[in-house]
C-alpha cells in the first residue's frame, strides 16, 4: 500500500510527472513557459492511423507546448477524437511516433502515463450510485496503492476539483441522479483530480448550458496558464477564439492549419475546412470574434 513517490515536475525535467498538486493556482507550477526555453511536451511525427481501409489520421506532424490551451476543431470525421485517443494511448498509431515529454509514449508504463496525461471522455455512463465525491476521488487512482487509500493531499486535490467545477452542493449526491450537464462536470472534476500536467478534453461543453460552458472554458484557460498543457476538442469556434491560445484545424485526418486565432480564423480557411461560406469579424461585445456560416450555393444548381 505504499504511496508512489510524488514529486512536482520542473521545467527542463522531461520525466517529471505531476503528483500531489492541489489542482493549481500558482502560475508556472507545472513548469510551463515561465521557465523560458522548454521544448514541446507532446511531439507528433508522421502519424498515421488506419481504421479498416480508412485513413483517419494521415501523416500528421504537430507540437504541443506547455502552458498553452489548444482547441482541436474540424468537421465530423476529421480525426479530432481519434487524435485525442492516440495522445493518451487508447489507440495505437498505425505508423509514426508520439513523444511525451521527450520520451516515446510507448515507453511509459500505464501508471506513469496516468500521472502525466488525463482524458475527459465525451460521455461517461454511470452504472452504479457512487456519490460525486467518490467518483472524483477515483481520479486519484494513479497516485495510490492497490487498496486506494487516500492521503490528506489526495482528498484536498479532489475537493479542489469539486469546487472548481462548482459541484460543492452536489458532492454527496449519487451520480446516477445527475443531469447531463452535471454528469459532464463530474467527469471533468474527476479528470482534474488526476493532477496531470497534460489534460485532454473531448467536447467538454457539449452538454453544458451557456453560463456553465463559459465558466468551464475560463477554468480550462486558467489551468493552461498555470503551466499545464490542455488540448480540447470543440465545435464552438467563437469560444475557441476567446479561450484558446492556439487553434488546430484537422480535415480528413490531415493538418489544415494551426496557430493563433488571427492566423487561422480567416474566411478562406474556414471555407476550405468546413465547406461552407464563412465570415469572421471582430465581436465588440465579447472582445473575441464572431463566426458565421452559410450553406454554399450548389454549383450549377439552384438553391432549394
Amino acid at each position, binding site marked *: 500500500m505504499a504511496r508512489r513517490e510524488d514529486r512536482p515536475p520542473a521545467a527542463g525535467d522531461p520525466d517529471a510527472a505531476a503528483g500531489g498538486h492541489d489542482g493549481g493556482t500558482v502560475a508556472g507550477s507545472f513548469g510551463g513557459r515561465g521557465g523560458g526555453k522548454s521544448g514541446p511536451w507532446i511531439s507528433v511525427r508522421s502519424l498515421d492511423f488506419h481504421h479498416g481501409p480508412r485513413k483517419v489520421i494521415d501523416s500528421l506532424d504537430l507540437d504541443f507546448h506547455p502552458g498553452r490551451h489548444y482547441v482541436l476543431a474540424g468537421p465530423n470525421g476529421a480525426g479530432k477524437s481519434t487524435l485525442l485517443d492516440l495522445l493518451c494511448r487508447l489507440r495505437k498509431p498505425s505508423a509514426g511516433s508520439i513523444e511525451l515529454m521527450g520520451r516515446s509514449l510507448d515507453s511509459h508504463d500505464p501508471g506513469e502515463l496516468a500521472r502525466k496525461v488525463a482524458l475527459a471522455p465525451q460521455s461517461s455512463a454511470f452504472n*452504479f*450510485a457512487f456519490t460525486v465525491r467518490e467518483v472524483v476521488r477515483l481520479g486519484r487512482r494513479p497516485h495510490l496503492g492497490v487498496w*486506494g487509500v487516500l492521503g490528506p493531499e489526495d482528498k484536498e486535490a479532489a475537493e479542489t476539483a469539486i469546487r472548481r467545477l462548482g459541484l460543492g452542493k452536489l458532492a454527496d449526491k449519487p451520480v446516477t441522479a445527475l443531469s447531463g450537464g452535471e454528469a459532464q462536470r463530474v467527469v471533468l472534476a474527476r479528470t482534474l483530480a488526476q493532477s496531470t500536467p497534460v489534460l485532454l478534453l473531448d467536447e467538454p461543453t457539449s452538454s453544458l448550458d451557456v453560463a456553465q460552458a463559459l465558466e468551464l472554458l475560463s477554468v480550462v484557460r486558467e489551468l493552461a496558464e498555470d503551466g499545464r498543457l490542455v488540448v480540447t476538442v470543440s465545435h464552438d469556434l467563437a469560444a475557441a477564439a476567446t479561450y484558446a491560445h492556439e487553434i488546430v484545424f484537422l480535415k480528413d485526418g490531415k493538418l489544415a492549419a494551426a496557430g493563433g486565432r488571427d492566423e487561422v480564423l480567416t474566411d478562406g480557411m474556414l471555407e476550405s475546412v468546413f465547406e461552407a461560406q464563412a465570415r469572421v469579424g471582430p465581436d465588440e461585445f465579447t472582445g473575441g470574434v464572431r463566426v458565421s456560416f452559410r450553406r454554399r450555393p450548389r454549383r450549377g444548381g439552384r438553391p432549394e
Partner: protein
Amino acid sequence: MPRPRPNPTPPRLSPYLLGAGLTAALIVLLLWSLGSGHMPFSPGEILSFLTSYLPGGETDLPETRALVLGGVRLPRLVTALLSGAALGLSGAVFQGLLLNPLADPYTLGVSSGAAFGASVVIILSLSLPALPFLSSPLTPALGAFVFSALTLAVVVALASDGDKRLSPTSLILAGVIMSAILSAGISFIKYLAGEQVSSIIFWLLGSFQARTWTDSGLVLLFFCPAMVVSLLSATDLNIMTLGFKSAETLGVDTRRVRLRLLAAASLAASASVAVAGIIGFVGLIVPHLVRLLTGPDHRSLLPLSALGGAVLLLAADTVVRAHLPGEIPVGVLTALLAGPAFLMIFRRRMRDLTRG
C-alpha cells in the same frame, strides 16, 4: 437555483456495521441450524459438542448423536454457507464487471455448462453401469466443474474474437449464445435418459442433502483464491464502472483485470454448482441489497456480498431441511423467491431510469 430532488438518497449504512451484523447473524443462524432438524439438539449440547473440537476438549454426547451433529449436519451447513459465500461474491463481481445490477454468476453460461457436464456424466453412468467410477457421487460434480470452466473459456474466446477489449456487451452476448446451445444439449440428454430423467432433474434442482467435508473443501478451494483476487482488484473494479476510456487513462489494464476477475468469479460459482447444483437468486439479490445498504464501493461490497450470501443460503437450507415438510430442494425455494425479487429490482431500476 438547485432543483429540488424528488428522491433524496437514503443515508448509507457503515460497511463495518453491516459486516458485524451479518457476522453475528451467521453465528446465531449456525447454532440455530445445528440444533434444528429431525434430531433436535439443545444449545447446551451444541456448545458441548463444539468445544470438543478445541484441543483437549471432550463431549459427553452419545456417539450416534455426536455423529449426526459432526458427521452429517455440520458438513452440510458448512457446505451451504460456503456455497452461499461463493455465489454472493461471484454475483457481486459479475454485476460490477458487466456493469449490470441484474447480472448474476450464471449470466455467462457457467450454470448451463455445469448442468450439461453433470447431465453427460449421469447419462453415461446410467448407460455404462460397468464403469463404477462413473456412479460415484463425486463424478457429476467433477463433470459439472470441468464443463463450466470450459464454457467460460469458450465465452471469453467468442467475446474477444471481434472485440479485443472484452466489453460487457460482447461477453453477455457470447454467454447468451453458449447458454442457448448448452440448453439444447441438456434437453437432448434428458430425452436420451428416457424414464431415468429424474436423476438428472434432481441433480439440477440444487440441494445440500448428504454433503460432506469433501464438498466443503472443494468450494473452499476456489472461494479463497477468488476472494483474494477480487479484493486485490476491487479498486480497479470501481474505476472500471466509469467506462473503458476513463479506466484505461487512469492506468487500469481493463482486459487483464476482466480476465482475472472472470476466472476467479466463475470458478467460485462453478465449484458451488458442482457440489450443490444450480441455486439461483443468491448471487443476484445479495450484492444488490448490499449495494442499496452500504453503497457501490467494491472494497466493501465484495466481502459483504460473500457474508450475505452465506447467511441467506444457510437460512434457506435450514428452512427446507428442518422446517418444511418432505425436504424440497433448496434450489426450488430460492427460485420461488427469485421472481418477486427480480420484479422489485426491475421496478426500482425503471424508476431510476425514468427519473430526471
